[in-house]
């Protein structure tokens, strides 16, 4: 995706203009279409005629006209006499930022996660349907249907354009953060096809999370999520080779980690940990910051990583968290201690047969010197994964341990 000079401006203004329109006219569905059309008009006109002096006013006017045209033709179709819409005079709207309200609306609980992410990217992120379709490698018609269905559902649910109150607000904010996290992950793990011409979803997720953070600077989990994204994104160049092969954390060239992002992320973690309550994103960010703090893999403070996973396991129990704690425990207490903790997950059907569990067991078996067991588990993990790069990595580990078998492979005692 080629970045045009005004593209960032346009994307920043999209949710603001949409918010203004929805406040005036209600009907999120129609307003969203009108804003999308105004954005498309801007991408055609602005390069030729220059960015207008008041770009927000320009977009609001164009979008309002489209909306009113739409409402009039709807009225005509229904053969009604008078239109309720009045001509909208462009004005500079006071600086109430509706971004958060829009995000809450797009992350409506009646929607599937796939619909929430698509709608968020369009209504708040200002991406076109075509760009979102490319990002998820589906046809544009598929994405258009998904977005239109999502808007219908929101309409049917009768949501008002305002922030929910109290516990519902908290709950909905968690959904918003989860959607932002999913967008980031999609950008991070995308393994299909060529990356060319695909919008950078990781960057987009960071941009949107920054917007939420600017609105809610006191919320520890918002801060934690932003920090987690920055600290993870800092390693983007180190985590794959030029050929696209995965490089595990302990083998990454740490000099290529983005220092600026790490510093910013670490500061955010520190600030958020000083807050009253700890949440899962803050803890994951704190773990990422601990890794970022180590100049070499050997210098990693595994005791701290383990302690953080213990807290995370207590506040948000999840077999994937336990699995991560296994890795930290194996570093501090040895692979046999790790394998013992790992065996507690064997009866958990949420993770049984998962490639991550199989690959962690393979790593630990390899470290105890059980190359036959390691080989078997690397192979099983490779079969179980749906990620191509991960599969290549696991196959190469399997080949490596097999070459150790039969030879006088040293047995590394715990």
């Amino acid at each position, binding site marked *: 995706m080629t970045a045009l000079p005004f593209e960032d401006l346009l994307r920043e203004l999209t949710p603001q203009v949409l918010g203004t329109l929805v406040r005036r006219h209600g009907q999120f569905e129609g307003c969203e279409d009108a804003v999308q059309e105004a954005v498309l008009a801007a991408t055609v006109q602005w390069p030729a005629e220059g960015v207008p002096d008041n770009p927000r006013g320009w977009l609001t006017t164009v979008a309002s006209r489209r909306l009113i045209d739409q409402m009039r033709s709807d009225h005509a179709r229904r053969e009604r006499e008078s239109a309720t819409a009045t001509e909208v005079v462009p004005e500079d709207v006071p600086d109430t930022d509706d971004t958060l309200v829009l995000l809450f609306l797009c992350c409506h609980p009646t929607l599937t996660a796939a619909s929430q992410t698509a709608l968020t990217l369009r209504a708040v992120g200002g991406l076109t349907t075509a760009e979102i379709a490319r990002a998820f*490698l*589906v046809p*544009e018609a598929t994405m258009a249907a998904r977005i239109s*269905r999502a808007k219908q559902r929101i309409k049917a649910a009768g949501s008002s354009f305002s922030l929910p109150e109290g516990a519902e607000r908290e709950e909905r904010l968690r959904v918003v953060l989860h959607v932002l996290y999913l967008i980031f992950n999609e950008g991070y793990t995308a393994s*299909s096809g060529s990356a060319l011409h695909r919008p950078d979803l990781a960057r987009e997720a960071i941009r949107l999370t920054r917007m939420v953070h600017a609105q809610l600077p006191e919320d520890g989990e918002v801060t934690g999520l932003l920090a987690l994204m920055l600290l993870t994104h800092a390693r983007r160049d180190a985590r794959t080779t030029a050929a696209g092969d995965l490089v595990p954390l302990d083998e990454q060239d740490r000099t290529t980690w983005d220092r600026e992002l790490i510093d910013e992320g670490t500061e955010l973690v520190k600030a958020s940990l000083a807050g009253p309550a700890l949440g899962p994103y803050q803890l994951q960010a704190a773990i990422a910051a601990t890794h970022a703090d180590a100049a070499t893999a050997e210098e990693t403070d595994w005791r701290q990583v383990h302690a953080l996973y213990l807290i995370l396991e207590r506040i948000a129990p999840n077999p994937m968290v336990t699995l991560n704690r296994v890795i930290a425990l194996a570093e501090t207490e040895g692979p046999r201690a790790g394998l013992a903790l790992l065996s507690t997950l064997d009866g958990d059907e949420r993770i049984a047969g998962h490639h991550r569990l199989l690959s962690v067991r393979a790593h630990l078996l390899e470290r105890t010197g059980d190359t036959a067991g390691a080989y078997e588990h690397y192979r099983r993990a490779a079969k179980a994964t749906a990620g*191509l790069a991960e599969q290549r990595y696991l196959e190469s580990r399997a080949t490596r341990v097999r070459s150790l078998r039969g030879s006088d492979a040293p047995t590394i005692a715990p």
Partner: protein
Amino acid sequence: MKFLIGMHINPAVLDALTDEEKAAIGDGHGRFIEALKESGEMITTQALVDPSQAAVVSVRDGRPVVTDGPFLEAKEYLGGFYLIDCENKERAIELAARIPDAAIKGWGVEVRQVMFADGQLEA
């Protein structure tokens, strides 16, 4: 998540179906396609010609050798597929269960996640 739902058809079972049964299968697919398009989960669907029309291609000593197919001597053949993009495997299975073929004894509907994708999807 993208899944390929493959429909494995036994031609002998197909031949034994009445016209009404065949028409009902066709209608069922029509409704399924519409529902998938509306929900925004459809990527594409394709149906294949009879396996007797297949050609098996191999290269021996650098030269292509073509024989009449099918490749596998089996009772069931891939008759067509749906390529979908949906929430998770559970949803893919739920969708697969709506395909009329799934209700026919001797036919198989198989769900497999896509691991790699490239190329033009708009065709």
